[in-house]
């Protein structure tokens, strides 16, 4: 909805330049709380502060930022990533929920004032939509 879009854009603005750091933190939280997610990163150094996690966190954050700028057509904006996840990465769909949850936890812990119930709802919807798009070409 229009209200959701406003909430999402406002939240992303509040995050500003921290997006990359938040992305990395969300990944770290996910690996800690949901260890099965580590199976997709056996080629990574997953220790705290790892350069690879920082880099990957920024990648994820940038992609999400791109989606925020194209809320009216997320499938088109994320089409290449959708192909990637379907044909190359093949991350089981359940894992998108884990990362989405950890993104919410990260944002909640760093921006409690902005993270109102309505904003929480809009962001949850946003991450769910992104997850659906990223798994849409799986079969």
């Amino acid at each position, binding site marked *: 909805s229009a209200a959701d879009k406003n909430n999402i854009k406002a939240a992303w603005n509040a995050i500003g330049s921290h997006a990359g750091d938040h992305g990395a*933190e969300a990944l*770290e*939280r996910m690996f*800690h*709380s*949901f260890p099965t997610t580590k199976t997709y990163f056996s080629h990574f150094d997953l220790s705290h502060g790892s350069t690879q996690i920082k880099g990957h966190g920024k990648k994820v954050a940038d992609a999400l930022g791109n989606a925020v700028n194209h809320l009216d057509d997320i499938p088109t904006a994320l089409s290449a990533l959708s192909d990637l996840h379907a044909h190359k990465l093949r991350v089981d769909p359940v894992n998108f929920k884990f990362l989405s*949850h*950890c993104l*919410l*936890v*990260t944002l*909640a*812990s*760093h921006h*409690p004032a902005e*993270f*109102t*119930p*309505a904003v*929480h*709802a809009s962001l*949850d919807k946003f991450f769910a939509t992104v997850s659906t798009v990223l798994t849409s070409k799986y079969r």
Partner: protein
Amino acid sequence: MVHFTAEEKSTILSLWGKVNVEEAGGEALGRLLVVYPWTQRFFDSFGNLSSASAIMGNPKVKAHGKKVLTSFGEAVKNMDNLKPAFAKLSELHCDKLHVDPENFKLLGNVMVIILATHFGKEFTPDVQAAWQKLVSGVATALAHKYH
């Protein structure tokens, strides 16, 4: 059965000690109803749930949230025996309340998010991991007696 290390237990206990159960309970249930509106199906008798502010301010939501979180306190006291501790509540949720156990996971995750808003930096990945284990254990215990 979920197993908690001594460290995880003390992490959970020390955070729980600082939680205002009444406030957090209302907030958790409120956010559940706002973020996942289909969960409102169990609360037709609660009156005005028409907007986020109506939900968060609704006295029945606050009261029931407090009840739920107080009961969660039992989990914190019985981390080694979650299934027996929640046996009766499990039967209640199945036989009388007819709540899909999926909802316990949703509420558990909302609780984790609220702890994050309240405790900020203190809610580190390690602390979160301990709490994820607890909410997941409680969700499983509450679903255990379903038939």
